[in-house]
């Protein structure tokens, strides 16, 4: 648990609304863990650490609208990379996301990359004050809403390009030409990012989609990404750069990026491919005949040490399992059982 006002400062108002809160004995509000990145950032800052690589697999709880049919408690797995050169750290985290998914058997995931700072600067360039309305229009790919936000033809052209265009780093190059001044350097950044991803061997699974803004988390301030898998209706995870939150917590000039993914959605995806999490490991019944209980318990202890799951009960003449009497017999095969 953390003090609520600290977490609110890092995660932003919108997210703070969805956090479960309890009161400390002195009346101060405490927040339950609604996601992990903010807590890690707060922890690192309190230890004045501006470098490191951390990972977690943990449960979180959050108020969630009933319409999305999600659970309020869910499991997240993620990693944070604090420090390092921006483009190299971004590439490392994106590549790590894909290889982490591969390690549990999810081979087909793909990633879309955007950049919230590039987006903000493009909006600034066209003098669009209503940034939130613009983000909503772009995030829902609604041309009608975009036209309500700005009447400037060039701005409309630019943001509908952002909305609709997906592809390689050339998308950013083309956008830079449309926007002109104010977004210098991003074309080179994306070119380098994709060069690094090629070295990691995953560039063909990553695409640029500049409408990717990860709006649910306000703390992102650079490259952000979302992870997709065919057949799942919602992104399986995502991440991005949050240097601004480190600064908000008091550690200016600290670079930080990371990702989180939903363990529950990973499980769902694997189940969809026929992976069975329940397994066939029904416990083995060890059934003792009169006078042989101690021998049965000793056998069970031995088997458990070797990793078996077993129960000990009195033989009632019907059960299936391993009967322990003068001899130990597997009742299924009728043969003498050698543990």
């Amino acid at each position, binding site marked *: 648990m953390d003090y609520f006002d600290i977490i609110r400062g890092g995660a932003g108002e919108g997210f703070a609304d969805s956090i479960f809160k309890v009161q400390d004995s002195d009346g101060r509000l405490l927040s339950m863990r609604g996601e992990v990145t903010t807590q890690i950032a707060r922890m690192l800052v309190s230890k004045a650490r501006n470098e490191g690589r951390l990972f977690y697999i943990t449960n979180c709880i959050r108020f969630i609208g009933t*319409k999305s*049919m999600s659970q309020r408690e869910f499991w997240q797995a993620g990693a944070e990379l604090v420090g390092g050169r921006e483009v190299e750290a971004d590439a490392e985290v994106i590549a790590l996301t894909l290889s982490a998914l591969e390690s549990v058997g999810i081979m087909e995931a793909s990633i879309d990359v955007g950049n919230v700072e590039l987006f903000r600067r493009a909006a600034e360039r066209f003098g669009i004050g209503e940034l939130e309305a613009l983000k909503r229009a772009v995030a829902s790919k609604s041309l009608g809403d975009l036209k309500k936000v700005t009447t400037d033809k060039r701005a409309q052209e630019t943001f509908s390009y952002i909305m609709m265009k997906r592809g390689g780093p050339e998308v950013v190059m083309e956008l830079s030409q449309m926007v002109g001044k104010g977004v210098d350097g991003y074309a080179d950044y994306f070119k380098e990012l994709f060069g690094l991803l090629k070295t990691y061997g995953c560039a063909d699974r990553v695409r640029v989609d500049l409408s990717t803004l990860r709006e649910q988390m306000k703390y992102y301030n650079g490259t952000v990404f979302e992870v997709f898998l065919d057949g799942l209706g919602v992104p399986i995870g995502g991440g991005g750069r949050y240097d601004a939150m480190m600064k908000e917590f008091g550690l200016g000039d600290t670079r930080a990026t990371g990702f989180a993914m939903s363990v529950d959605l990973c499980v769902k995806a694997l189940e969809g491919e026929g992976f069975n999490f329940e397994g066939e490991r029904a416990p083995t019944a060890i059934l003792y005949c009169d006078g042989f209980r101690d021998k049965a318990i000793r056998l069970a202890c031995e088997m458990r040490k070797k990793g078996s799951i077993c129960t000990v009960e009195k033989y009632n003449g019907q059960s299936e399992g391993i009967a322990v009497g003068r001899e130990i017999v597997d009742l299924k095969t009728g043969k003498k059982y050698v543990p």
Partner: protein
Amino acid sequence: MRGLIIAIPNKGRLREPVLRLLDSVGLKRIDDDRVYLANTTMEGIQVLSVRAMDIPVYVYNGIADLGITGRDVIAEIGLEVYELADLGFGTCDLVVAVKKESTYRHPADLPQGSKVATEFPTLTRQYFNDIGVQVEIIILRGAVEIAPILGLVEGIVDLSSTGATLEKNGLKPIGRVLSSTARLICNKVSYKTKYDMIERIVENMRGCL
């Protein structure tokens, strides 16, 4: 890769224009009318007929990749989906209406604590919060227009395209909550994983408008 599923309203004012639109882009259903999930003349594309109100839910969860439903419904349900096209038909307003003889000229004239009947509780709450009137919302499932005359509520929030139903039930509109048309919506993941197929359909639809 799985095929593509398009969710459309199983009845109501949008049903016929939607079927005509699908016809004109070459998507004819080949199964019986009562089949909720029907195959079409295009291989791999199925049409799912469900309640207009449920379409954003099917699309958000990725059960359907595309859906056609009203802007009013999308706003009420509030789930995040892509809104790829304004299809232009199905024009109507979500309005606040009261009895014809009432002295209220604007929704803000309704007294604090008034009862309002609607099928759109979320939009109704937002609207009255924004204008600073606290109302008690009564959720009804259809024929909302009769509620004021029977004395159940002071006002209603309901869809109106020509105003005829309001008129016939002794009501007058005094404010607009939003304007709606039919929209083509898309699941956010499907848009990325089935991009080519979806773009083709969207292009065809835009061409038919």
